[in-house]
């Protein structure tokens, strides 16, 4: 059993011209900009977490191309179901940095302003997969020309909801694109201990649809594969799975110590395949990138990040929201519990 492998831009920044997508410079710059912004966003998040200013956080270092290339392949009105490591995809989808930081600082209220068809992050592994299938299925029933995209990791492919979701998608030919972020580890568990399958993409074949493996550190390959899958899905061609072969350069989350289960030499090898570096070379050959360009960009984006953090940190939670959004209409027992808490809060404030 074998699946196709797609790489357009190799680790040295050489491009496979026959496969190169026809993108204008503006789009290429957008890819680059969002990858750099995501890395700065991540870096800041880790620092904030260490200072106790953020929750446990999963960095997407090294996976920027695979989340951003796929996100930019979507139409704005396509459904987006992220897992918890797709900060770059969220940024590409237009979710303000301020909201992302606000969420990871511990406010559900950040999700109040999510643009439509951008689902909040799903913390439990793989459970969002059937949602994406259902949303795409609904689009088909409602005759809307939209598709859904769902993100999950290599570990998720061992979960029951992965199987059930892909099986339903195959049976009902829903316009769903499954983006597997194969970053080689599910916390400490290496990819080869997760499944005996040679590739993750080949699992799609068992459900009766196409699965491809792409170089997840090649933003052009990820973009092209996702775009093709989405166009086909919207045209009634059914679902597809894309395995982005990438690497989690950072720890699983800020609570994890990867030195316990992987060798630094392996990380060093993957550093050579950095997604931003190779795209930089590509843009440099196109006359877009230069050291000055980099300096200006970094300065501008760092300011954006700092401003977003400042705004997020000034966010004040509303304690009543704990009760307000459980049901459309607050039932009597919740009204009572809310009053009980508010009485305590006002007593505390009065002290």
């Amino acid at each position: 059993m074998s699946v196709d492998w797609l790489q357009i831009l190799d680790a040295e920044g050489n491009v496979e011209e026959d496969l190169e997508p026809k993108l204008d410079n503006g789009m290429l710059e957008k890819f680059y900009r969002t990858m750099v912004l995501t890395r700065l966003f991540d870096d800041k998040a880790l620092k904030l977490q260490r200072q106790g200013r953020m929750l446990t956080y999963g960095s997407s270092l090294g996976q920027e191309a695979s989340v951003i290339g796929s996100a930019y392949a979507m139409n704005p009105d396509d459904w987006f179901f992220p897992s918890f490591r797709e900060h770059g995809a969220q940024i590409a989808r237009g979710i303000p940095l301020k909201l992302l930081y606000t969420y990871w600082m511990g406010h559900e209220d950040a999700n109040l302003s999510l643009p439509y068809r951008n689902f909040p992050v799903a913390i439990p592994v793989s459970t969002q997969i059937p949602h994406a299938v259902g949303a795409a299925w609904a689009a088909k029933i409602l005759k809307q020309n939209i598709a859904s995209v769902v993100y999950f990791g290599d570990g998720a492919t061992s979960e029951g909801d992965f199987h059930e979701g892909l099986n339903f998608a195959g049976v009902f030919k829903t316009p769903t694109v499954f983006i597997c972020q194969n970053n080689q580890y599910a916390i400490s568990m290496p990819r080869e201990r997760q499944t005996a399958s040679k590739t993750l993409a080949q699992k799609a074949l068992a459900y009766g649809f196409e699965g491809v493996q792409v170089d997840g550190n090649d933003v052009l390959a990820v973009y092209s594969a996702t775009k093709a899958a989405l166009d086909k899905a919207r045209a009634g061609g059914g679902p597809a799975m894309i395995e982005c072969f990438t690497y989690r350069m950072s720890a699983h989350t800020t609570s994890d110590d990867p030195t316990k289960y992987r060798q630094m030499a392996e990380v060093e090898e993957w550093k050579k395949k950095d997604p931003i570096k190779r795209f930089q070379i590509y843009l440099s050959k196109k006359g877009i990138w230069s050291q000055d360009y980099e300096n200006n960009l970094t300065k501008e984006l760092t300011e954006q990040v700092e401003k977003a953090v400042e705004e997020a940190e000034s966010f004040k939670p509303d304690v009543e929201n704990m009760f307000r959004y459980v049901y459309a209409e607050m039932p009597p027992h919740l009204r009572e519990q809310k009053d009980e808490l508010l009485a305590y809060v006002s007593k505390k404030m009065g002290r």
Partner: protein
Amino acid sequence: MAKFNMVQALNLALREEMERDPTVLVMGEDVGVDGGVFRVTEGLLNKFGSERVIDTPLAESGIVGTAIGMAVSGLKPVAEIQFEGFSYLTIDQLAAHASRIRYRSRGTYHCPLVMRSPYGGGVKALEHHSEAVATFFIHIPGLKVVIPSSPYDAKGLLISAIRDPDPVIFFEPKRLYRAFREEVPEGEYTVPLGEGKKLTEGDDITLISWGSMARVCLEALQQVKDVSVELIDLRTLSPMDERIIIESIKKTGRAAVVHEEPRTLGPGAEVVARINEKAFLYLEAPVKRLTGYDVPVPLPKLEDYYLPDAERVADAIKEVMAF
């Protein structure tokens, strides 16, 4: 007016809601061609087609998980889980997602799905086909849990459940599916969620129950004709109609709660706790719990020992009265 059993009343509710609202659809194992193993969805496939009456693969989490995706996209899926003993597989999707999508997204999305499932014992079935599982779902904030005890209520409650903007778990006591017929109007009427109903009015003791146990309680009243019993059918277990219970107890001063679920942390425990909080000083006797035991539901040869029956309900009433 036509007389219907509960299966027919539920079928009528689905049919009328699907006619009224094109976003309502039915999905589950064997609900289409077969019309459901209890025939609740019979005839719907022919009338509404396979896009709205969907025979799904055999996967409970997949059914509820995809229904969530549909519900947030503007459809109103009514997902059938063939037996309540298989509903454990849905709890992850319901607890982790359906129940908290409104909360997590701060109202940006909501999840108007209904999960229907046959429920409870008394039909001499296989293992996993006779369970009273409401407790698990009541314990999940964000869900509503409904259990009708009559054809009339079944139709009116199912319509309310379908129209409700939040996820509703709708348990159908399978023992009552074809137990009796009563007048069920065709055309629109609803029974509101969250409201109990007095099946009898009385002054001596309040009897609180739901589902097939509410019918067992009614039967028991024949054995205690000298006691004036106020029998409350809660109908919705979450949110629970606390007001109807407390008002009744302020009048009677005595109470018993009867259910099929195992006793420990069962719905009766919540009923007793609320009585303690709101009507303790009105009580003349401890509140009695007559329930399933804290054991797995036995196979049919021992099932009658597990389920409260009319005589045991009558004994419970006498016990509370004698205190």
